[in-house]
């Protein structure tokens, strides 16, 4: 999986929503197009980007071409959640410091500022 193109692919909200849908099982283009106010060709274009990025795969089943998440897709999403956690952790580590700084002047000279 090309990380760079995977993340570019993930930069679009429709494509992220498509991945969210596929996280719950495979779906056809028609099923994927349904929740969006978008034509099937437009959705197909998004699917192509996701596929080229190695995030989704297609299966051939008669005339149907259901898409599903590629393993890398799932990992990318896990990674995303991990990033959220990381950002929150970073925030709260910083807050620890802010809180520590609030305590000190209070003890020394009755924090009035």
């Amino acid at each position, binding site marked *: 999986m090309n*990380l*760079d193109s995977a*993340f570019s692919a*993930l*930069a679009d*909200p429709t494509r*992220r*929503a498509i*991945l*969210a849908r596929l*996280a*719950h099982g495979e779906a056809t283009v028609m099923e994927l197009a349904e*929740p969006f106010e978008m034509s099937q060709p437009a959705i197909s274009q998004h699917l192509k980007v996701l596929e080229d990025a190695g995030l989704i795969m297609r299966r051939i089943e008669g005339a149907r071409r259901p898409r599903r998440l590629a393993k890398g897709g799932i990992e990318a*999403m896990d990674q*995303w*959640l991990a*990033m*959220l*956690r*990381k*950002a*929150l*952790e*970073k*925030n*709260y580590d*910083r*807050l*620890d*410091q*802010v*809180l*520590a700084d*609030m*305590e000190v002047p209070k003890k020394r000279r009755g924090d009035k500022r």
Partner: protein
Amino acid sequence: MSKLTLKAEGDTHIVVTRRFAAPPEAVYRAHTDPKLVQKWMLGPEGWTMPVCINEAKPGGKIRYEWTNGKGRGFSLTGEFLELEPFTRIVHVERMHLPETTPDNHIETRFERDGSGTLMTMRMTLPDAQTRKAMLATGMESGMEASYARLEGMIQ
């Protein structure tokens, strides 16, 4: 000591917990005083919050704007619904990335825990679909930031 937990609950909730060494009064203040919020609610290294409006009263407005100083930015707006000093804050917020995310209703509780505080932040999304999308987009929020940073790293 202060391990963060983040988990999905039911169909529409996300619950985050975190312990702090400081008492609830201080942690509450750090969430309601814009000068303090501006110091820590920044996401990954390198981002700043040049605009921080935080009117901590029922109906009061929230507006945070973040920038990485290199032309990338995003914002969050919201309203305070309920405030119980120093134990509870209820507010609603949405991100502008620039597309606007659905409203996220958040109750934040600060409980005394020994000499420190246990904070529990319970987010409620309008429906299961939205939460799914939110988790899938990594609750992109600050995360657009991490993401921008990651993009820089992988180039």
